[in-house]
Every structure is written in structure tokens, then in C-alpha cells.
């Protein structure tokens, strides 16, 4: 079992619920909708899928065939350099260790590549420097 996050862009607002249903029934995936922004003409959502690699791959193909734009949702963290004071409050809460202090300068360096967009660090930063835009 693995866990992956995707950002889905859809145009039909009914699809949101049926996506979860299809994933459960057809692909034996445990879906978890983390965020959703729905407007009259469709919307965006962040979906977490738990299942085998095979089933996750198959659902991605299925969804994109159904006309939904689907992209891996990771590396999304954004840091506002002006707001960041390099305190380090974010370091120990990140599950994938994206934040590491530079041993020379004590700047807190953010490795965007490792970010799985879990959101844990957002409210750990007292300076509102971190965001995870949809």
C-alpha cells in the first residue's frame, strides 16, 4: 500500500462525489479529499489515494480518460523569503525532512523536491512564511 496526492481539475461539479465512489468500487482505492474548491463550472481538488501502485496508476489513467486533468500534487510548498526569519520551527515537524539548516549560515534551506504537500509545516511557522497554494 502506498499513498499519493493528486491535484484534479474538473469541469462537471457532480463528478466530485462520483470520483471517490469510482475509486473505491473500481480500483479498491481509499480516497481522501484533502481540499476542494468548487465553483458552478467545476473546480479543483486535492485527492489522496491509498492503494497499490498498480491500482493508483490505473485510476490515474481512468480519471484522465474521463476528461479530468490530473497531476501529482507535491513539491508545492512555497516559502516567502521576506517573511522567513530562519527560526527553524518548521524543521522537526516535516515528515520528509524538507527543511535543513545550512551548517555555516544557519539559513533554513527548503528542499522543494522532497515536499509531499502534506501541509504539516504551515501552522508551525509563526511568521506566515509558508503556504501551499492550490
Amino acid at each position, binding site marked *: 500500500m502506498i499513498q499519493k496526492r493528486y491535484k484534479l481539475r474538473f469541469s462537471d461539479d457532480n463528478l466530485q462525489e462520483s470520483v471517490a465512489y469510482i475509486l473505491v468500487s473500481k480500483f479498491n482505492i481509499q480516497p481522501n479529499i484533502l481540499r476542494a474548491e468548487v465553483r458552478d463550472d467545476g473546480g479543483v481538488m486535492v485527492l489522496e489515494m491509498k492503494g497499490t501502485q498498480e491500482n493508483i496508476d490505473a485510476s490515474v489513467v481512468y480519471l484522465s480518460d474521463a476528461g479530468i486533468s490530473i497531476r501529482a500534487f507535491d513539491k508545492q510548498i512555497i516559502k516567502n523569503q521576506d517573511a522567513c526569519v530562519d527560526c527553524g520551527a518548521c524543521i*522537526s515537524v516535516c515528515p520528509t525532512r524538507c527543511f535543513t539548516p545550512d551548517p555555516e549560515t544557519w539559513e533554513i534551506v527548503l528542499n522543494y523536491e522532497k515536499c509531499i504537500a502534506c501541509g504539516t509545516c504551515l501552522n*508551525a511557522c509563526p511568521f506566515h512564511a509558508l503556504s501551499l497554494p492550490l
Partner: protein
Amino acid sequence: MKTYGEINERIRRKKAVVYTAEEVIDLVRSKGPEKAAEKVDVVTTGTFGAMCSSGAFLNFGHSDPPIRMTDIRLNGVEAYGGLAAVDAYIGSTAMRENSGEFGYGGGHVIEELIAGNRVRLRAWGPGTDCYVRKDIDTYITLDDLNEAYMFNPRNVYQNYSAATNTLDRTLYTYMGKLLPRMKNITYSTSGQLSPLLNDPHLETIGGGTRIFLGGGEGYVAWQGTQYDTAAPERNGVPVNGSRTLALMGDMKQMDHDYVRGMDVHRYGTSIAIGVGIPIPILNADIMKRAAVSDEDLYTTLVDYSVTEKGRAALGEYSYAELRSGTVDYEGHKIRTSPLSSYRKARQVAEKLKDWIENGEFLLTEPIFRLPETGTVKPLEVRR
């Protein structure tokens, strides 16, 4: 042995030898404290972290017609108006009501004023024969204010316990986000650069000591609140919260680089301030203490899921261990987060060093010594 007068004479002639508390460690290791004390005139310290017990006195000037302000809001944050007509005190933890997802408080207002931003002032008063106006709604900037000075009743805590959480759920505390089941530890200090860890018994720091406060010049006004000398020591330095200082300084000299509002999730707002204190190297003893390093500085680890009274110490760790990123607890590796910025602490100590080297900042001999003993009494709940 040197005197304040001799050191200041060298500062005036731009001949003073100044090291930061970090740079001086190696010097003392290689030369020994006696030789180093002959060479070094001043050691500069620095810290940049949360200092909740902070705020500022502001004087708005009189409008025409004038108002005696009793109820005051700055960008929606309440300022205390129980002073003369247009004097107020804004505290760092005062929070704007309904500030939504992002908390906004007194610390942010102070930061915005220092950054030169316009701040909305709304105030109400009873209306009197001499102050007829009952309300006012306008914008102010730091330049418009007659006086604006920080007066912080408790800053630069001498050491502070590190925090962890043994519960099954995440705790949001003033020591940051503490993950369940001891998944992380937070600590807040600049350690070997920290002002009161480099002069642990306040031999040179006292009432009237001139300091770096928020980018400008400030002074030690008094002992800080909850001043405590009873903490256990290791290597001659307390291992948890002990001495504190009350600091003041002119906001008009400050720089927003060194003063930042904070929003500590589910705790409230606060302020981070850069503070630097110079230590005159009068003798080898003072030199030795100012050369303390993270390997020799310890703090107590406590569990924030129990109330303060019942908090048992889970262990003692050196700041070198904590700063390494992980510490060992009963065979488990626990990840650590500093909450105060070491990069900025260093920046403060460097800046103060520059000022002294350039002859712009003279040292002051304390006008009075801070108490040699002090204990913190609890508040009893009586019926």
C-alpha cells in the same frame, strides 16, 4: 584587569578589539582566558526570538478638537488607554478580534510602525469639558508620533526548558507545534551567543546597561518579571528559566529586520525581537564565562502535556546536542527544532560589534546591580 573607562577610550579611538560570543570561543580555547582577556575588550552577544512580554508606549499628539482616548484600536488591535489623554501602551499579545486564519496582534502593529507603514487609529472617549471629542478615526505613522518607545517587562530569558509532548495528539503551544508521542522537541535560545548565558551572574549587565534593541540603542531598565536566581546550574550556568531583563528603547531607531510580529498557532500573537548585549572583558573570569560554548550549556527537557507544577524533567541536553538536529531519548532518536533564529542572533551580535568597532557605541557601567537573589512565587487561587 581593564576598566570601563579604558575600554571606552579604545572604542573612541576605534582601537577596541571586539569579538562576538561565538568567535571568541576558539580564541579562549587556544590562548586561555588570561591571554585572551588581555587581547579582547568587548564580547558581543545576540538573540532573536519570541519575547511576549513586550510592548510600546505611544503618544499620538492632540487633535483639534482634542479627545481623551479611553478605548483605543490600532489596526483593530486594542491598546491600553488608562493613561493621560493621548498616551497608550500596546502589548505584543493583544489580538485583533476575528483576525481569521492568520492571527494579527500587537506585535504586528509594532512591526508595521517600525517598517514605516500607515496604521489605522480609532479611539473613543467620554467627551469632557476640556476634551470634547468623543471619537476619532485616522491613520498614523511612526514619524507622526511624538514618542514611541518599547518598554518590555520581560525579555532575554536566561535559558529556557526544551519542550516535548507525550500525548497521542498534537499540541499547539507557545513552544511551537509539538507532535504526538514525543515525535519532536523544540527549544528556544541562541545558546553560546545568548546574552545572559555569557554573563550568567550578571557581573557586567545591570540597570542602565546600554544595549542593542530591535536595531537601535536601548537600555536595561530593571530586572525582568519572574526574575529567578534559584535554578540549578551546570558549568556555572542555570539549566532552565532564571534571570530576565526589562528593556527599553526608542522605536524610531529600530529596524523591521529585527522586530517581527508572530502568530503562534492556537497560542496567540507575540513578537520576535533582536537583542544584543555587549560584555566588557574586565578580567579573565569574565572572559572565561563569555567564552562558553553550546557543548557546556544545558537545558531541561519537559513534557508540555502536563501542567507546569507537575512537569517532571525528562532529561538534560546540551545545546550542542539539540542543535545537531536529533537527540537520543531512551534509545529513540527525536528530531529537534530551534524556535529562535541563530542566523539573526549572529546578525545582531555582528551589528553590535560593527557599532563598537566604529566608535559609535560606548559601554556603560551599570548604575545599579540587579538582585542577587530572586524567586518566582505562584499565584494561589483563594476563595
